[in-house]
């Protein structure tokens, strides 16, 4: 076989797309609700996750963890533990992590476990021949501490108020005073946990100076840089494999304890080492979403037109962490109003590291803003859907920039119609026996992003193709959509395209996070395929725009030629690279939706039963209707958890994560999730990327909890301003 012919197409989004390639291709697989190509492996147990491919001689490491919240480890019974059966090593290394890396950090997080910042922080790794021996020995570790008084909770603590995260426009106080109707309310949302079903795990092995780690990570190019930096080795010597990731939700964005510990241990012992975090360690020592306190002020005139919007947030994190939950991220552009205040305050606490969790910011900020809008609608006597429609701005009211596209009104109208919103009664007007019935709604808004991403598409001489990129599939459907994009652009049936992901030796993608994965990695694949299309067109003597590719043949002019004939034994290797450009700055990009909920609340017990959820979204081109819908169902269920069940409880004495297991931290179970309907409005956004697709997976969990809370109010007349709406918050206020 001759050497491949190298082609490339690199593109920066400096102007809106005018080509719209995927609307002029002919294969007909893009957007189709196709099954996941990796699905057969997943449903038969053949997909191998992080801790499922142990090289011969693999031994097991278990992290020993701190039982105090703050101080220093000044000694440890390492000699005693080393003597236990099967124990190979007890490792206290300053390179072990205090916290996992934040998303897209690309450098080591805070290291050195000798200083303790939170209960459950790893202090050492115990390695033994078997998992049972390592687990037992890790429990026998007794650190000597020099303990300090911790800051157990954010309550009453002084806050940092970073100037860049505050904004004022006009005079909100004056607007509040002059308003026909006003709302000034404070809501709280609890800390939450990602709780991906696959616990973090890593299996490390060395070949000379080259390290290979099988792990469960979302963003391999960043993870390689983080791991190399943490270990003090060259990134070129690190390979990370994450072909199947058992859920991430932001909890596996950055490199975490297990990879660093496994790599250090494997180096010391000269053997492969597996470190699979115990579920409790995942809860306590990886990441959480910060709790929030939010003050919302809304002022409107007699017609319900907003004249003022204030949204101030108080969140927390560990010392030394730059990330803080961007609660108000969507507030500057969601609704109109000339007088505005945005506030952001961070307390430093001795608790589990706070980081990004599915839709950081909007997941907690939008539901609260939407509850406040519901309160304003009631105060003004205006229908909640109508109040929102009256306040959709014609441009970003905080910057004056145009929207790339604003479909909020379309989503609200279509969603209300499909749900039967017109049947909603006024507060407390509907009862069926024991059950108080209510309907609520919320807008869904999430910023839309694009990240640098690279991919290779190889068209082989036999007319099959291979997609290669280090993108991950964390359940989002990357395998499906990247295969579809390549198949569509090259005019190939799906079974002639193979997609290889999750290997950091492949071209670096955006990774999975921020809902930018599909748009970024997908655009790179499309560009790579487009480079091949251009070459095929050249060979056929036509313009790429006049070329039709379908079912493995090229049609140009009136002639159909099999691809194998056009290739004539050659292999075409297209390299695609997408970079964000000016369209990131010149327009406000976001995704839009409307969520509707119907609940039944027991008048006797306060139990909330969700009856149905319906959502309408506009998020650009849908790449696979089946996987996109699944993303939305999952996101909406995330919202159910936020509204009704999920809450990290911290001990007020030392801040420790009390309910650190799956029996006590309540993610929704099957019976908690009712009938849900998802509708996508036909949509394109030329400013977003050359595919005109946008993010989905996070939008779906923005707003849901607000819709449910508003439905509870409509049923009962009770405003729960402290999420989640558990029975205890309703019981003594029931009508």
């Amino acid at each position: 076989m001759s050497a491949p012919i190298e082609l490339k197409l690199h593109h920066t989004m400096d102007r809106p797309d005018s080509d719209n390639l995927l609307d002029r291709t002919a294969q007909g697989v893009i957007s189709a609700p196709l099954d996941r190509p990796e699905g057969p492996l997943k449903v038969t147990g053949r997909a191998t996750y992080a801790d499922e491919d142990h090289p011969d001689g693999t031994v097991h490491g278990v992290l020993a963890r701190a039982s105090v919240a703050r101080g220093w480890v000044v000694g440890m019974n390492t000699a005693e533990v080393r003597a236990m059966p099967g124990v190979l090593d007890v490792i206290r290394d300053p390179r072990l992590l205090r916290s996992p890396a934040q998303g897209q950090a690309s450098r080591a997080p805070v290291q050195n476990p000798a200083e303790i910042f939170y209960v459950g922080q790893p202090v050492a790794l115990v390695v033994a021949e078997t998992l049972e021996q390592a687990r037992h020995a890790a429990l026998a570790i007794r650190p000597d501490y020099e303990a300090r008084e911790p800051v157990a909770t954010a309550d009453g603590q002084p806050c940092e108020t970073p100037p860049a995260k505050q904004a004022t426009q006009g005079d909100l106080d004056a607007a509040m005073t002059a308003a026909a109707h006003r709302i000034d309310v404070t809501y709280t949302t609890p800390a939450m946990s990602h709780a991906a079903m696959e616990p973090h795990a890593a299996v490390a092995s060395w070949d000379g100076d080259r390290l290979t780690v099988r792990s469960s990570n979302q963003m391999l190019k960043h993870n390689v840089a983080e791991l190399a930096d943490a270990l003090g080795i060259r990134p070129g010597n690190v390979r990370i494999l994450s072909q199947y990731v058992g859920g991430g939700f932001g909890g596996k964005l950055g490199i975490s304890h297990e990879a660093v510990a496994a790599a250090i241990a494997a180096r010391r012992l000269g053997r492969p080492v597996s470190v699979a975090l115990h579920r409790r360690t995942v809860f306590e020592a990886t990441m959480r979403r910060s709790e929030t306190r939010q003050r919302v002020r809304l002022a409107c005139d007699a017609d319900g037109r907003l004249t003022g919007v204030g949204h101030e947030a108080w969140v927390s994190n560990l010392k030394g962490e730059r990330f803080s939950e961007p609660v108000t991220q969507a507030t500057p552009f969601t609704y109109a109003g000339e007088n505005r205040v945005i506030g952001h305050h961070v307390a430093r606490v001795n608790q589990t590291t706070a980081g990004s969790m599915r839709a950081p910011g909007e997941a907690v900020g939008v539901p609260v803003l939407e509850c406040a809008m519901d309160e304003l609608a009631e105060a003004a006597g205006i229908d909640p859907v109508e109040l929102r429609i009256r306040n959709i701005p014609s441009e970003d009211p905080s910057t004056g920039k145009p929207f790339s596209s604003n479909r909020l009104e379309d989503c609200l109208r279509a969603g209300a119609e499909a749900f039967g919103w017109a049947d909603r009664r006024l507060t407390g007007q509907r009862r069926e026996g024991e059950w108080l019935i209510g309907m609520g709604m919320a807008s869904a808004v999430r910023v839309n992003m694009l990240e640098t991403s690279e991919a290779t598409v190889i068209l082989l001489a036999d007319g099959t193709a291979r997609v290669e990129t280090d993108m991950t599939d964390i359940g989002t459907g990357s395998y499906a959509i990247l295969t579809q994009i390549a198949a569509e652009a090259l005019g190939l049936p799906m079974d002639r395209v193979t997609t290889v992901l999750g290997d950091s030796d492949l071209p670096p993608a955006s990774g999975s996070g921020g809902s930018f994965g599909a748009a970024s990695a997908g655009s790179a694949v499309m560009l790579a395929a487009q480079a091949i299309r251009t070459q095929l067109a050249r060979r056929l003597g036509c313009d790429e725009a006049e070329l039709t590719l379908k079912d493995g043949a090229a049609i140009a002019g009136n002639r159909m030629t099999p691809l194998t004939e056009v290739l004539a034994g050659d292999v075409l290797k297209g390299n695609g690279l997408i970079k964000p450009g000016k369209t990131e700055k010149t327009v406000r990009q976001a995704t839009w939706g409307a969520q509707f909920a119907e609940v039944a609340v027991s008048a006797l017990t306060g139990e909330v039963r969700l009856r149905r959820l319906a959502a309408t979204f506009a998020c650009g081109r849908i790449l696979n209707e089946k996987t996109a819908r699944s993303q939305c169902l999952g996101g909406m269920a995330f919202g159910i958890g936020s509204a009704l069940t999920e809450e990290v409880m911290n001990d007020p004495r030392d801040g420790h994560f009390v309910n650190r297991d799956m029996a006590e931290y309540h993610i929704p179970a099957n019976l908690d999730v009712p009938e849900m309907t998802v509708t996508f409005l036909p949509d394109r956004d030329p400013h977003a990327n050359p595919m005109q697709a946008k993010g989905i997976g996070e939008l779906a969990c923005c707003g849901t909890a607000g819709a449910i809370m508003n439905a509870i109010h409509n049923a009962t007349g009770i405003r729960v301003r402290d999420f989640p709406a558990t029975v205890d918050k309703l019981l003594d206020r029931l009508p």
Partner: protein
Amino acid sequence: MPAPTDHPITLTVNGTVETLVLADPRVSLLDALRQRLGLTGTKKGCDHGQCGACTVIVNGRRINSCLSLAVMHDGDAITTIEGLGAPGALAPLQAAFLHHDGFQCGYCTPGQIMSATAMLEELRAGWPSVVSDDLTAPALSDDEIRERMSGNLCRCAAYPNIVAAIRAVADAAAPAEDAA
């Protein structure tokens, strides 16, 4: 530490007789499957009986294999996800999960499918649940599926599609039952 059990135990796993010498009685059935027998299709989500990812069928009943020691299963017949079907030869539930997108990341999926396999048998045998209207002959309502599958957590929340997949298989099987 007590003396290691050097008695071998015999498990019939997916129809194959396996003899295991477990030097350590603390090995869970889950870890024996994953680490000793290389059957990593059975997943570990919590190791505490809280999530259902480790569900396997032992002598016809679904159990959480993380909550059971391997040495307790001498002589038992165990079915894991690998024994149900293979790519290209999917069992009906596996095919239905694929078609209805009853999974996303896929990590809870083997447990869901094993649980659903046994659950349909339980229903066929007339076992009632807390949501059954008729305790002597429970009908296969969507809520009945949801309740009976609530021991299998899915953070991706593929639940609506899991219910649809199970319903499709149960409905396809129903006419044959009527005829019988």
